[in-house]
């Protein structure tokens, strides 16, 4: 049966009920979305915090949850540590060069010390020890018992080639002999 309507001009009025329900759904969707995004971010934050916890502890940084601020903070921190790394690398290189130069000197003096502790001699008297331009010089006396002198030898193998030269032997009160040695260490590779 067909319905009759002689007046169909009334505009459909949106009922307050439906408007409120739609509004409520929109608000719930927005809040729900924010909640889920916040939860996801927080979960990820906790994961990152666990992974990077040591780093954060030692750099005195922490994440705030504000994505933009956190990204800026981490970027600044990275820049700061890059500058620091470059600075320390330069210092390390300087120190390495310094240590290298000092190690040659140490080897020279270690060789001189080895010669000075000659096991055949009763006594060793160093008259002069000097180090200049990677070359060490020592002038020392060796006192032997009687006339039994020997050519100066180090008790251990020297690390640098030593060049000892005996300047002279001298009898001393018939019981002892005195040997005068001029020792040059290093500078052979130059």
């Amino acid at each position, binding site marked *: 049966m067909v*319905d*009759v309507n*002689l*007046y169909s001009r009334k505009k459909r*009025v949106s*009922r*307050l009920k439906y408007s*409120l329900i739609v509004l409520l759904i929109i608000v719930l969707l927005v809040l729900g979305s924010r909640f889920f995004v916040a939860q996801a971010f927080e979960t990820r934050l906790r994961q990152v915090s666990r992974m990077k916890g040591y780093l954060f502890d030692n750099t005195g940084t922490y994440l705030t949850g504000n994505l933009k601020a956190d990204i800026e903070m981490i970027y600044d921190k990275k820049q700061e540590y890059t500058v620091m790394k470059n600075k320390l690398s330069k210092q390390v290189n300087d120190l390495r060069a310094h240590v290298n130069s000092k190690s040659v000197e140490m080897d020279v003096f270690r060789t001189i010390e080895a010669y000075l502790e000659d096991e055949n001699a009763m006594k060793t008297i160093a008259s002069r020890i000097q180090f200049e331009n990677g070359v060490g010089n020592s002038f020392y006396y060796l006192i032997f018992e009687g006339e039994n002198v020997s050519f100066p030898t180090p008790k251990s193998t020297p690390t640098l080639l030593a060049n000892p030269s005996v300047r002279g032997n001298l009898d001393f009160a018939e019981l002892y002999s005195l040997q005068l040695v001029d020792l040059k260490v290093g500078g052979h590779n130059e």
Partner: protein
Amino acid sequence: MFQSMITAVNSDEGYTEIVRAVVEGRYLKPVFSVLKMGANSLEESTRVFMENNTIPADEIFVTAFHPRDVVFQHLEVPRVKSTKNLLNVASFKAASQFSLPPDEVNVACLNSIASLKSGLVPAFVITKRKAVFEFIAGLTGKSFPEPNIVDVKPFSIFKMAQTSVFEGNNIVFIVDRSYSLLLTLKGEEIVGLNYINDGFDQVASGFKEDNSLSPNTNIQREFLIGSKAYYDSLIEEASERLEGLISYQLRMYLTNTMSNSPNTSAADESLFTRFFVVGQSSLSTAVYSRAFQRILGDETEVVSMPLKMKETSGITYTSVGLLMRGGEILGRRKLVFKEEAGLEA
């Protein structure tokens, strides 16, 4: 605040009924009804209704135009594809008949667009647009909102009919206080109709002084909303009186309806073997059924029109139909009228 409500105004000559119902799930529950009789029934019932109700502007408001203010007419129209085109063509034809501009004529088709393919000449309700606007202005002037639906009485009654019984060819007689409508149906399509200027007023008015009734009984009111269960003797007496009044005329109306319709002829009368009768209540339905059974019983099966709801709800059938039409606006197509004890003024 958040419940959908429907208000229906059923105004007629000599009575006005205003009903308000709430939509709860699939059910329509009447929560208020007022029925006033007399010449000033619209004003009185409106006053009582407004004292007890506040209608928001967005509430579903349904009312019905009186059939005396419209013209029922079959119009031959070319085959069209849409209802809009059908109404445009019908407006033009109707306007030319009444020597009016097409935009001053309001038409509504009583047949489905699908039925036109079978060669049926559709029936239209034709009225002046000005008359509809004046009717609406009369209601809005009484603080009612702009109506969602302005139906034409008494077609809303079909909303509560069990339409499955309309298989085949049937005659339907609908009676109200001041008019009757005789319809011939093929299936659910109206093939002929005849507006009759007499209602049950002429029958009911004869019982004012009847000593068998309670002194305070308003028999006019009972014909509108009364139950047949309490008035066996009245039904018998009224139907006998009605038989005397309408016996000859009914056959004439039937013949006229058949012969005046381009879809039927007087010879088709024998094809319409079932005669459904419906009034505004179970009482008025029973009176007319009984009378018509006596008049036509030999040749035709006369029965009360089967309804989807209980026969007695304290509301006129037209108003129930209007409420159900209002319910359809909310998209709940399977609304069932659920009778509950509502507040009645």
